[in-house]
């Protein structure tokens, strides 16, 4: 599968990455190789086989609805942010 420069730009935008031109060039080749490698799977006959979403065969893994004390609190959350105000995370204006 041919990966174009537009594909790379699109993927970079979706992933919130800013890439240098040189990086884009080398990623193009890398991605093509990866897709080539994975596409081997397309040769398998999967007719009549239901999709696998996980390999552990677990189901209904859930917990009770009880409030538990947390290891980390608001202060440790806000300590991770660049800026805070009024106990909130301060960020550049978004719309």
């Amino acid at each position: 599968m041919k990966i174009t420069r537009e594909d790379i730009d699109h993927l970079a935008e979706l992933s919130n990455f800013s890439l240098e031109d040189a990086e884009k060039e080398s990623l193009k080749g890398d991605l093509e190789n990866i897709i080539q490698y994975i596409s081997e799977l397309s040769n398998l006959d999967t007719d009549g086989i239901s999709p696998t979403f996980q390999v552990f065969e677990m189901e209904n893994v859930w917990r009770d609805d009880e409030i538990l004390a947390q290891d980390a609190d608001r202060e440790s959350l806000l300590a991770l942010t660049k800026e805070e105000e009024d106990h909130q995370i301060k960020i550049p204006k978004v719309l």
Partner: protein
Amino acid sequence: MKKYEITIGIECHVQLATKTKLFSEVDNDARGKSPNSCVSPVDYALPGMLPRLNKAAVEMAVTAGLALNSTINLKSRFDRKHYFYPDLPKGYQITQLYSPIIGPGYVELPSGTKVRIEHAHLEEDAGKLTHFDTYSLVDLNRAGTPLIEIVSMPDIHSAEDARDYCKELWRLMTYSGVCLGDLYNGNMRFDVNISLAEPGAEKLGTRAEIKNLNSFRSVEHAVAYEYERQSKLLDRGEKVKQETRGFSDATGKTTSQRSKEESQDYRYMPEPDLPPLNLPESLVEEKKKSLPLLPSDYRRMFGGLIPENILEILLDYPSLMQKLAEVDKKFATKVANLFSSVLLAEENASLLNDPLPSKDQLEDLISMQENGDLSSTAVKSVFLKFFDKEMHFKSTETIAKELNLIQENDTDTLEKIVEDVVSDPACEKAVADFKSGSEKVLGFLVGQVMKASHGKANPATVNKILREKLK
């Protein structure tokens, strides 16, 4: 007849009233709490944190599905929807795209319109952003709150039905006990898709989506505004743009927010951190059995007993309907009347926050009225006293006695008062007038007896005695 036919589909986000969030064990009720005080490392997405599914949220989703007359999909699973926005620290929302827990169903509106439900799925809410001039603030208290998103089919064709559909969803979700239903705090939010087409057209027109409406009135107004806006465009031969629009309550208008011409690429993928659900049939059966009474049950229960317009008003107050269902059916009409004409009167609005009278208090009250122990005015006074903190736990009779409101029904006592009144010289003329055929002075004489009895005489009995005496 309108020139264009309007077609409306509605997506509704319902916050589930669980104790904890969907994937973390922190307090889910952040109302009135300080920003970022209800958060866990899962909610702010520290590396390596794993979601832990709340069983109660799954159970509430099942209950909600049953209230929507929906099939419950025993097998369902979660997916990741990727996008970058500061209200979502993980960079993806956990939702159910491919296999939602709630399948097709329907909601029947009081008007008879049936709105089909396409599906409803479980997902997590995002945080709250507050915007200022040059910056925004992020509060993650709401991030991870369990939601179900209810997606309707495009079965709605008027602003009124759009409003009634949202209202009926609110009722279904509050009556079934899965949502607190506090619209002011965003417990339910509506996204409304609206398109116009010539009547009889095979294809629907291009739709605009009005996001994040949080009241029934804004839903109704936004639809009405969009009809005008889109029909003007079509009249001029212009095209409606497929876009997301916001609605302002202040201006009553919708404005463009972002164009949806190129569809967003969310790179959905199966959520690897959460194994799929495969619910036992018994869980669904259990929820079916414990499903509280829903609006349709109340309509069946009280149809014929309570006028429809009053019933629809009362249905906006789940606690009143639950109380009505408790009292003996033979009192329901009169209790409903007290609720709608006294309790819901504007001047008594604050009482709705207080505990309601007990079943016994209400039944005794109506019995006492029917026995003639209380006049209809006295009934209202006693009813209002039920909400008084001092009186709330007292019996109806005790309250009526304390307020000196028990009617005098004793014929001997009343006859004596009547005799005193008719022999009073001040009433001489009235008595003479009545005897010579003037019916209307009887009212005056009854009034005099009421006065002499300090308002406690039963007016009907007084009337009867007076007629006897003056024959």
